């Protein structure tokens, strides 16, 4: 996907990328690997989307029409696993690969070969995971949160492959994160102090630390599962002296930082795009950094807010309630700072800006429902209902996914040298915006009205809003095919992009040609003037 423009080099070893398919198998180039991650994540996004459409098709009306309960549980589980681990996370890693070296003026990632391995593990891991649909007993069916003992004593035989896939994908994430940290800490251009880095680089630095800290804990918990299932241990089995609730503690110790892993890079993307289109510097850069760091720190000490109904004593419930409410503060600071960036700017509303503004509004709605969920007595009525489903889809879809889409629109002229079709882009935006709200807003209602999660059929009073939600899902889902079309069309040609591409864009990546040459910053940039966005 990146251009084959040869750059004049001092060392003469590189003459542009290899030809043919082996280029992609053996590449150690951060741009190529970024491209691989992005295409892989898009494929996973469409796959996870198909599973979601299966779910919403069944939930279109009460009664069981096309999918029986056993398969339904597999669809919901695999939809969650694929979207979290196959779509959102690899997409952000792809963006990191493409952008971090260019943004800090480095020639590549610190560990290019490990970078290649990090990517190529993923198709194997997800091939294995998806193949479980065809195994005896079917795919994982215990929810993406795979609580014991449903996932140990009562799991289908494919659970072992699930565990293996999780291990592989965890190794990929850890290797990728080590690469990101080492690159950012050691390869910044001279003069680029930490507090001069673009916010996207900061958010990825923090995200990488979170990944390094918690992915091993996930590896630990699935290993304990493996041992309970195959080696006669009883971590999560009361009969052997264990405790199913221990599973939840260890899982959510990973799980809560995980959701911040999925949103912090989004914050970085939006913090790059809004200043560009408002033609005004990001408001409060320093507090944005501190807020991101506080969010990351707080994310370690709130895990049990996913477990308010298991029977935690009063003191525990109160502590976790207060700590969770506290996260609203740094998150609010970030939202206010984006708004302050817009305020008294001179805005234009190209597609990346549309997706970014929608991000701020809709992510805030998701954050506010999160605040409601933090209130323990009320949570007794929200927990495990569609209110929670609405909350996390708001922060993940018009949150993370919109930011990834915005990033693609924003940087694709740099990657390909061509502008995307602005009219089609805006169309994609409006279809997605309407689709996402029609799908997920009504889910607040049915959750409050009493509909539990993870059920293939429901009582009649939930019928109307379920039908509306399903219609929205199909609209949103099919609109993403338009995005695919726009991306391919842009790769193949379009209005030529300048180096700077966007009038208000600042940053080292906008000082190099579009498309970006295969190798950039072989020598560090001379001036830091452009770096601070």
């Amino acid at each position: 996907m990146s251009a084959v423009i040869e750059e004049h080099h001092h060392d003469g070893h590189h003459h542009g990328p290899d030809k043919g398919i082996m280029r992609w198998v053996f590449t150690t180039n951060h741009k190529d690997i970024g491209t691989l991650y992005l295409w892989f994540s898009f494929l996973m996004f469409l796959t996870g989307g198909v599973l979601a459409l299966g779910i919403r098709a069944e939930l279109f009306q009460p009664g069981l029409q096309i999918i029986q309960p056993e398969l339904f549980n597999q669809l919901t589980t695999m939809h969650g696993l694929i979207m979290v681990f196959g779509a959102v996370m690899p997409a952000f890693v792809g963006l990191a690969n493409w952008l971090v070296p260019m943004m800090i003026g480095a020639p590549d990632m610190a560990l290019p070969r490990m970078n290649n391995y990090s990517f190529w593990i993923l198709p194997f891991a997800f091939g294995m995971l998806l193949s479980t649909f065809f195994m005896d007993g079917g795919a994982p069916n215990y929810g993406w949160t795979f609580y014991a003992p449903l996932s140990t004593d009562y799991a289908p035989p494919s659970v072992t492959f699930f565990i293996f896939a999780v291990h592989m994908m965890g190794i990929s994430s850890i290797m990728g994160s080590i690469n990101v940290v080492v690159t950012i800490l050691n390869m910044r251009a001279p003069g680029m102090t930490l507090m001069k880095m673009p916010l996207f680089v900061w958010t990825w630095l923090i995200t990488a630390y979170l990944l390094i800290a918690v992915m091993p804990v996930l590896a630990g918990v699935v290993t304990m599962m493996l041992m309970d299932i195959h080696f006669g241990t009883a971590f999560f089995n009361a009969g052997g002296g264990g405790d199913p609730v221990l599973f939840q503690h260890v899982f959510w110790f990973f799980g809560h930082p995980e959701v911040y892993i999925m949103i912090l890079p989004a914050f970085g993307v939006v913090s790059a795009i809004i200043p560009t289109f408002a033609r005004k510097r990001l408001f409060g850069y320093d507090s944005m950094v501190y807020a991101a760091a506080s969010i990351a720190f707080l994310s370690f000490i709130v895990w049990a807010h996913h477990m308010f109904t298991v029977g935690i004593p009063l003191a525990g419930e109160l502590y976790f309630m207060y700590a969770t409410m506290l996260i609203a503060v740094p998150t609010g600071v970030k939202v206010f700072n984006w708004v302050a960036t817009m305020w008294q700017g001179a805005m234009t509303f190209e597609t990346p800006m549309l997706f970014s503004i929608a991000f701020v509004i809709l992510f805030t709605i998701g954050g506010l429902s999160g605040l409601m969920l933090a209130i323990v007595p009320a949570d007794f009525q929200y927990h495990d209902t569609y209110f929670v489903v609405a909350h996390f889809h708001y922060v993940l879809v018009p949150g993370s996914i919109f930011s990834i889409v915005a990033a693609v629109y924003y940087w694709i002229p740099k990657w390909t040298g061509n502008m995307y079709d602005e009219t089609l882009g805006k169309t994609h935006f409006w279809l997605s915006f309407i689709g996402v709200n029609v799908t997920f807003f009504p889910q607040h209602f049915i959750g409050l009205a009493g509909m539990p999660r993870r059920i293939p059929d429901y009582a009649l009073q939930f019928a109307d809003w379920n039908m509306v939600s399903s219609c929205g899902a199909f609209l949103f889902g099919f609109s993403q095919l338009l995005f695919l079309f726009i991306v391919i069309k842009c790769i193949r040609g379009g209005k030529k992009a300048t180096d700077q591409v966007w009038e208000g864009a600042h940053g080292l990546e906008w000082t190099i040609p579009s498309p970006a040459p295969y190798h950039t910053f072989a020598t560090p940039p001379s001036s830091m003037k452009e770096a601070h966005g």
Partner: protein
Amino acid sequence: MNRVVQMWQAGLSLLLFSNAALADWSTLNMRQGVTEISRQVYDLHMLIFYVCCVIGVLVFGVMIVSMLMHRKSLGVTPATFHEDTRVEVAWTVIPIAILLVMAVPATNTLRDMYESADSDLDIEVRGYQWKWQYTYLNDDPAKEIQFMSALKTPQNEIQNLEAKGEHYLLDVDNPLVIPIKKRIRFLVTSQDTIHSFWVPDFAVKRDAIPGFVHESWVVVEEPGVYRGQCAELCGKDHGFMPIVVQAVEQADYDLWVAEKQAEAKEVFNTVGKTWTKDELMAKGEEVYLQHCAACHQPNGQGIPPAFPSLVGQGISVGPMGDHIDIVLNGKAGTAMQAFGQQLNPAEIAAVITYERNAWDNDMNELVQPKEINTMMASE
């Protein structure tokens, strides 16, 4: 507090929802419920909801104004400010203050929920895949009432072969009956996977963890029928194990208790008599549809390999002893449960008889409740 909240509610709902159908609050919002705690929870929910609305209106309002006024197309020059410590401190401190304000009523309600007191009635609630068992604890074992409570909605309604009834998926064969205005303590545990006992009208949701017991309590103010569902993924029929609680006046409750105790006695007596084949088949079909059809299907064909077919093959046309054993004791490592723990001897004898003679099975055999009873009681 309540009246103010109600007025805001009415105003907001008028403002936001003009459609008559949407004014039906019950499809849009949490219910107030029928206990003091549930009403506190509702008020708390509405309070945070209004706070969030105000925050949303303020933030989005500023954004909309900005998008309208600060556009390049209007020829504006962008400002250059990019920091302001006072403003940043303000919008850090003010949210903290708002959170503190929200934390106070939340803490009070939670404290109320955790307050311990003597209970008037203790009920053990046990989650099974995929139904509930209720045991009314009593010092005198002869007075204890225990029964299973399973989904009553017929498979035909679920599979769209019949029109759906009013309480589709929220109807059970044996509801939990409790007296109003008395403190009921629920002792919640599970037989197998994690389940969750949730009755929205009570604001009670307590996870059922295998090997552990957790308590929750309720004092129901108004008589009525209150329906809830399992709220933790527990396998195939997680969506099909509802909870129905019938809260009645004390006098009606006492009558129901007497009735149940008499029933238990009758079952005990029924076991002694000799049943006709027709009686066994009728009862057997009832039991089969209630407890077996979810897996083995109404037509007996099951969903192999996980749920074997009972028609013309396997256990129902094999030796009687094996058939009785598997129904009584289940089969380890599979989803087949030990129904000897859940059904009385008459029900067991009837369902075995039914399985051996229904569909195309013509074993022409029957088994009497007293034989089953003998096997279960003393061997």
